[in-house]
């Protein structure tokens, strides 16, 4: 739980007046580079101290708190790793430093590496690993001591498609098993593939939080775009623009139009009705808003220099 949390690096703002509460299951931290995702995760793992505000992890402050750190597994975003150790040695060493006995750490280390598809490479030095293998070894060290809270900073970086599927499944399973998993990414479909629960970050502040569909509801007062591919787009556009639900129309090509509306529920029945009346053939009707990218673009657009919307009565940002 972060309450008005701020972290500054000298004059540079890492995160600013950041309030969020995250419960069990998978939560995605989403934002562009520099949004404050890694700073927030480093604060959660006690690698950084808050400059201001309150931060509690598993009900306690985290900086220098060994009791809490023993319940956290952290996979950093950087590629640094102990190159002179084998995969098995690295994961077992992290298990030992997590409080496991030597035998238990060695056994659990091998099991975790196997889960991540690294069983055959366990005896090889980490410097010989590919980027994707190193990423999986980093994940293994975060999992080896079976922590309650897992912090994965850009966990799919450098992974091949097969490993991505494997890791995504594993993260979902961990969330399903009741663990609290926080995953950061600046790539929207990565987060979408893991969870619906997201926290959108922008310029060190929480832009929105909650279920992706709830967030979609929150932005209903923003224009919703509908792209129509048809044979006579200008003719259809002329009819549509007469509707009070349609705010604007663009023609991105000879056979397409994109309309903006504040009332998508009114527009979706209107479009086929007008097309039918005019005898216009519609080939495709798509809404770019149906993915997280559009939500993110809406929320980060036209926010002024701060880029952040004010909070509503429930304390959520809209």
């Amino acid at each position: 739980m972060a309450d008005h949390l701020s972290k500054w690096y000298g004059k540079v703002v890492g995160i600013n007046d950041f309030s969020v509460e995250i419960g069990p299951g998978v939560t995605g931290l989403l934002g562009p580079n520099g949004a404050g995702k890694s700073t927030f995760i480093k604060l959660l793992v006690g690698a950084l101290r808050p400059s201001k505000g309150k931060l509690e992890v598993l009900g306690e402050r985290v900086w220098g708190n060994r009791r809490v750190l023993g319940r956290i597994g952290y996979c950093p975003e950087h590629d640094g790793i102990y190159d002179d150790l084998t995969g098995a040695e690295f994961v077992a060493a992290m298990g030992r430093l997590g409080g496991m006995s030597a035998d238990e750490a060695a056994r659990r280390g091998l099991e975790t590496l196997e889960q991540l598809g690294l069983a055959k490479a366990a005896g090889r030095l980490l410097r010989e690993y590919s980027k994707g293998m190193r990423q999986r070894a980093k994940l293994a060290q975060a999992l080896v001591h079976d922590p309650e809270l897992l912090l994965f900073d850009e966990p799919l970086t450098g992974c091949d498609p097969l490993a991505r599927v494997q890791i995504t499944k594993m993260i979902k399973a961990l969330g399903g098993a009741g663990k609290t998993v926080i995953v950061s990414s600046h790539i929207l479909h990565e987060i979408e593939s893991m969870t619906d629960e997201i926290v959108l970050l922008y310029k060190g502040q929480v832009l929105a939080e909650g279920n992706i569909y709830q967030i979609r509801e929150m932005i209903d007062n923003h224009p919703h775009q509908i792209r129509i591919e048809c044979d006579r787009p200008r003719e259809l556009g002329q009819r549509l623009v007469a509707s009070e639900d349609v705010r604007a129309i663009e023609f991105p090509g000879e056979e397409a139009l994109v309309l903006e509306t504040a009332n998508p529920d009114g527009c979706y029945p209107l479009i086929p009705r007008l097309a039918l009346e005019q005898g216009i053939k519609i080939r495709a009707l798509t809404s770019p808003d149906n993915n997280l990218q559009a939500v993110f673009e809406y929320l980060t657009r036209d926010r002024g220099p701060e880029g952040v919307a004010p909070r509503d009565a429930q304390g959520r940002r809209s």
Partner: protein
Amino acid sequence: MTSPSVGTAVRMIAGMSLRRARRSHTLWLALAVAVLLVASAVVSLLVGGAGLDFYDDALDVLLRYVVPLVMLLLGSSAVSEEVQAKTITYLFSRPIPRWSLPLGKYVGAVLVGLVLLLPATALTYLITMFGEADALLPEATRLLQGLFAVALAVLFFGAVAIAFGTMVTGYSFVAALFFLLIVEVGLSFAPGWIKVIVMTFHLRIVSGLYHPAAGDPSLPGLLAALIVLLLTGLWLVVAASWVVSTEYRTDK
């Protein structure tokens, strides 16, 4: 999950540090410096200049220059390399006391230092005494004193190196070397009691190399050894305090 004991944390960190050191240039440089000392004894023996006097000179060079240099090579980058390689994030996200990092690094550096420098000292003694077999045993206390002084020097300069490595994450070797040049070399030529802040002064007393002239300060060997140990502890406390209160950024 319980937290590991401090002993386990220190042992693991020292072990990982030694694994990393095996591949680093600094270990080979430190080994080369130690070998050079032995080689100079061999050359001295071959040209007929060996003997107790040579051993005393060699021990003096060892305490003043070789041990500090070797320990700076081994210890000054031990913590900073964790920061630069960003591997410090793995250690500080574990339930271990933050100060176990410099302590583990210190143990690793001291072990290597002792393994390199004690045999080098003993070998130098044996080689220089090669032609004086009759004096080998009667003068053995000088060897023991020398070994003790070298061990103390390893402990002290190791602590200085680790402290600089925790406080200065870039150019820690240069910073520590600069400090030692000013204090240990520069002040060693100072007159009177100013010398007592120079650890090589105490180490030379412990080793039996120090023969005060009239007006020169003098201390009992045991007190000199205790002062060195006290200062070693102080430097380690500085390193530990620094690590406990410092955020090491790995995103630069």
